[in-house]
Structure formats: structure tokens, C-alpha cells
């Protein structure tokens, strides 16, 4: 085997591990924090579903350059693609490990984009970067948390109004809880079509996947709640209903995350593999199944080895997040991500979730949010691309000299 390919495979696995450690743990945080699942269950759910998402639903074809951030026609030397991919992977992994160490929820997509832009600029100057795409990425830093916040604010207001604001909250909870859960499944069904099956037509996704799934879930939940409303206290009852729903929504987040983000780790591996096996890569390269499995396995291992500790801390430390709030955050974030995917915006799930938490806080739904930590989060978002870019540029330069 080509030694460069072997190195890339190892790095791809390391990057997948870092995604599992940082990102996957973040996507399960609301469910663990709201005590819908235990940290142990979260690890099993995340491990299994991240792998399933990556292996069965990960794209079988990937771009050589993630998100078209560089102009691939300017890279004529196959070695540049090899060294660049290694530099980008290593830089993104290093940054993700640093962020995980400090517990900052950064975007894996943005890390890899930074890494790719870094080596591109060193190789061919700033003109190789597709600045239009880069602007979109920067815009998404600002837009995803804001849209996530607005969405969560509105959802929280609507959810509480529909259930708790009536003369008879228990009666309303029987009808409205299934409605909200059904609506979540409209989003989940549509997301499944777009993110997991990689469908392109939003209307078809909503009509053939979203609405049937939502309607079916509405009927099932309605019947179940009719049979046995957990308890006559609407708050405890509604919370216990949403606790069960959060198990499903968090599992879904893990599946979509695996299907979507595995490309960040294995895209560069596939590019190097294409060069190693065919001599040169075009705009898009096929991804062999074993590389997908490698990515999925890496994420699962990352969750099990490091993500577990993260989730244990979350489970112990977050005592104030209730299930209706957790559901609101998950549901809002998933909906925003769906629309962004459809619009082709490189939006970050992690950023949207943080925005959604703040949105519920603004709606007076969370008793206390630490605003000092928000500053750290936002700073870490803004430095992700430049830092990953800088590390990647240095590594690429070294590789070009010794390679």
C-alpha cells in the first residue's frame, strides 16, 4: 500500500475519532442533560447510529475539495492533493482535539474547510479560494445561531401556549403533545430523505417522507396518551411524554450527524485513495465502502472513548434542563438545519443548537444561562477556520519540502 495513503487513512480515522469525541457528544447533550437518556445509553445510541448513518447513508461519492472551497482545476500536481489532504486532516484533527479539551462546541465542517483553505492559499495564493463559498461559511457562523434562536423562541412560545396556557392543561396536553411530536417527525422524515438518503427535492421529501411519518406518529402518540396519560399533573405528565420523544429525536440527530459529517473525515481520504489508485482525482471521487466503515468506526470509537466522559459530565452537571425545553432545542435546531441543507448553506448543527438554547432562554424558558460562556463559544467559532487554516498551511509547507 502507498505509504501516503496509509498515513491518510490513519489521519482520517483520527479525524473521525475527534468528530465522535466533540461533535457527536454535543449533539446528544440536550438529551443527556434533560435526563431523557443516561450517558451510557447515549454512548450506545450515538455509537450505533453514528456508524449506521456513516456506513449506510454516508455519500458514496464525495467532492475532492469539501464544499468546493478551492478551485480543483488549479491543482495539477497529484502530490499537492495528497499533501494538502493530509495537512487539512491533521490541522482539523488538532484543532478539534484542542476544542474538545477546552469543551468548546466547534464545527467539524468549518475545521476541515479551514484546513483546506490553508493549504490552498500556500500552494496557489488567495485566488484559488472560492471566496463566494467562504463568505457563505462566514455568514453561517452568524446566521445559524440567530436563526436557531428565533426558531426556538417561537417554538417554545407556541408549545407552552398550546399546552400550558389553557384552562385545562391536562386536556390540552393530550391533543397538543401528539401534534408537536408529529410535527417533529415531519421534520425528521424530511431530514431523513435529505440528509440520510441525500434526496434533492424538498417537496417530495415533505410529501412522501415527512407528512406520512408525522401523521403516523401523531396517531400513535394520540392513541397512547388517550389510553394512559402518565399523571394528572400536566407538567410532570407532559415532561414524561417528551422524555420518551427525546430518546428518538436524539437518536435521529446521531444518525443524520453520522451520515452528514463522516464526509469531513473521509472526504480527504477518498481523494488520496483516488490519486493513489487512479493517478489523479477529478472534482468528485467515489468513496469505497471500507472507507465509509472506517469513518463510522472512528466516530463510534471517539464517542465511546472520549465522548462518554463528555456526556457523563453533562449528565451530572446539567440539572435544570427539562424535557420540553430539550425537545424545543432539538426540534428547532433540526428544522433550521433542514432548511439550510435544502438551501445549500453550510450551516453548523452545533452552532444552531447553541443558538436554540439562547432562544429558549430569551423566551424565559430556561431558568439560568451563563452568558459569559457564550463569548467563549462565539470566539471559538470565529477562530476555527483561521486556526485550522494556519496549522494546515504550516504542515503543508513542511510536507512539500520533505515530500
Amino acid at each position, binding site marked *: 500500500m502507498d505509504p501516503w495513503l496509509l498515513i491518510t487513512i490513519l489521519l482520517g480515522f483520527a479525524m473521525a475519532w475527534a468528530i465522535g469525541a466533540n461533535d457527536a457528544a*454535543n449533539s446528544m*447533550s440536550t438529551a443527556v*442533560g434533560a435526563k431523557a437518556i443516561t450517558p451510557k445509553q447515549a454512548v450506545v445510541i450515538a455509537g450505533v447510529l453514528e456508524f449506521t448513518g456513516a456506513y449506510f447513508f454516508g455519500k458514496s461519492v464525495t467532492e475532492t475539495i469539501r464544499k468546493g472551497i478551492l478551485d480543483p482545476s488549479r491543482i495539477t500536481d497529484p502530490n499537492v492533493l495528497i499533501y494538502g489532504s493530509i495537512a487539512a486532516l491533521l490541522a482539523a484533527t488538532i484543532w478539534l482535539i484542542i476544542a474538545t479539551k*477546552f*469543551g*468548546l*462546541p466547534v464545527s467539524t465542517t468549518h475545521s476541515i474547510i479551514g484546513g483546506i483553505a490553508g493549504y490552498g492559499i500556500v500552494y496557489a495564493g488567495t485566488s484559488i479560494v472560492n471566496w463566494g463559498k467562504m463568505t457563505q461559511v462566514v455568514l453561517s457562523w452568524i446566521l445559524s445561531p440567530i436563526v436557531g434562536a428565533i426558531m426556538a423562541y417561537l417554538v*417554545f*412560545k407556541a*408549545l*407552552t*401556549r398550546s399546552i*400550558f*396556557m*389553557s*384552562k385545562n*392543561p391536562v386536556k390540552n396536553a393530550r391533543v397538543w403533545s401528539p401534534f408537536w411530536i408529529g410535527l417533529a417527525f415531519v421534520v425528521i422524515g424530511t431530514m431523513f430523505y435529505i440528509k440520510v438518503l441525500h434526496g434533492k427535492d424538498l417537496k417530495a421529501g415533505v410529501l412522501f417522507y415527512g407528512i406520512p411519518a408525522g401523521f403516523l406518529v401523531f396517531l400513535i402518540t394520540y392513541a397512547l396518551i388517550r389510553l394512559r396519560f402518565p399523571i394528572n399533573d400536566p*407538567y410532570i405528565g407532559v415532561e414524561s411524554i417528551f422524555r420518551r420523544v427525546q430518546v428518538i429525536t436524539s437518536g435521529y440527530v446521531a444518525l443524520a450527524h453520522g451520515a452528514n459529517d463522516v464526509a469531513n473525515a473521509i472526504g480527504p481520504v477518498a481523494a488520496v485513495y483516488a490519486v493513489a489508485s487512479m493517478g489523479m482525482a477529478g472534482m468528485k471521487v467515489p468513496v469505497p465502502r471500507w472507507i465509509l466503515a472506517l469513518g463510522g468506526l472512528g466516530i463510534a470509537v471517539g464517542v465511546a472513548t472520549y465522548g462518554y466522559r*463528555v456526556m457523563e*459530565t*453533562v449528565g*451530572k*452537571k*446539567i*440539572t*435544570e*434542563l*427539562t424535557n420540553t425545553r430539550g425537545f424545543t432545542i432539538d426540534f428547532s435546531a433540526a428544522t433550521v438545519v433542514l432548511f439550510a441543507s435544502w438551501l445549500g448553506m453550510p450551516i453548523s448543527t452545533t452552532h444552531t443548537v*447553541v443558538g436554540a*438554547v*439562547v432562544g429558549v*432562554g*430569551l*423566551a*424565559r*424558558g*430556561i*431558568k*439560568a*444561562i*451563563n*452568558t*459569559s*460562556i*457564550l463569548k*467563549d*463559544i462565539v470566539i471559538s467559532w470565529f477562530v476555527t477556520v483561521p486556526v485550522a487554516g494556519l496549522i494546515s498551511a504550516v504542515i503543508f509547507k513542511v510536507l512539500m519540502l520533505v515530500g
Partner: protein
Amino acid sequence: MQVWTKLFAKSPFKPLIKHAEVVIQTVETLEKALQAWHDGNAEEMERLAIEVDRLEDVADRIKEEIRDSLSSKLMMAVSREDVLIYLHMQDKVADSAEDTAKWLLVKSPCEIPTEIKDVILQMGTESIKAAKLVYEAIVQMDRVIESGFAENEIAREYELIRAIEDVESKIDGLDTKLMKLVFENADKLDWGTGFCILNIARTISNISDKAKDAAERIRLMMNK
């Protein structure tokens, strides 16, 4: 350290409820001390009055902990200032009970007309109602937030606030009645005893005054 665990700060409401529980205990112990004072059981009265003092210290410690945890960097469902002022008022309820206990301790019991003692005991019993209502009000405030400020929950909170105001005005009435009784019985009391009785009454009525102030803060919490 995970960012998620730092993002969600601890809600001040559970500790506030805990503090309210200690306040109730303090006022309940004071009422028992007043009962012993009423029955002329000096030894028991002294033991209970000292216990009131101890419980007030416990309430103070919880208050300090809550204050320390409420950093200005928190985004809360209610304003931090309202929570702090509410806490101050709730703590004042226990402080007033302690003040009454002090007045019970400073002067050795002597002959006091029964009708005066009865009114004081009645004031003590009503004060427990005020403290319990404050506890209920802060528990209900937690529920108001849980419901996303639902109108029916807010309405229930207003009922509790009104109930606190009613208790306060009832104790005011008893206080006035007591003052009159003291002056009507002036010939049977030496000036020191009269002075002590009036101060016991003043400090007891402070309990419900502060309970009313706390309730007023809850009203402000809901309005924002």
C-alpha cells in the same frame, strides 16, 4: 470542562424554596416559643428562642450561598435584581422572628394580663400562615416559569399574593388591638413590661410585613 455544563447555570429557585422551608421552620419554632411564654414555661421558652436564633443562622447561610451563585453574567427567566431583593425580603421574615425571640429572652416573664398574651399568641399563629404562603408563592413562581408564564398559573400566584396581603392586614389589626390593650392595662403593667410587649408585637408584625414585601417582588418578577 464541557461547555454545555457551563452554559446551563443552576436555577436559583430550588435554593430559594429550600430557604423558604427554613424560614417556615424559624417562624414555627417562634410560635412554639410564644406558646411556652404564654403558658409561663420559661425553660421551654428559652430553649425554643435559642433554636429560633440557630435556624435564622441556617437561613443566613443559604442566603449567602444563593447570593454567591447569582453572578451578573446570568441570563435568567426573571431579573437577577428581583431575585436578590426577594431573597433579602424572605430572609427578613426569619430575621424578624429572631428579633421577637430576642425580646422574649431579654426580660424575665412576669404577670401579664391573659388577654394581651392571647393576642400575641394569635399574631404568632397568623405569622406562620404568612411564612407558609411565602413558601407556596415561591414554589408557584417556579411553576409559573415551568409553564412558560401561563396565565392560569400567574392567576394562581396572584391569589397567593393576595392571601399574604390579607394575613398582613389581619396581623396589623391585631397589632392595633394589642396597643390599645397595653394602654388600657397601663395601671397593671410596669413601663418595662409594656415596652417589651409592644416590641414583641412590633417584631411579630414585621414577619408578615416582610412576607408582603417578598410577595410584592414576586409580582414584579411576573410582570417583566
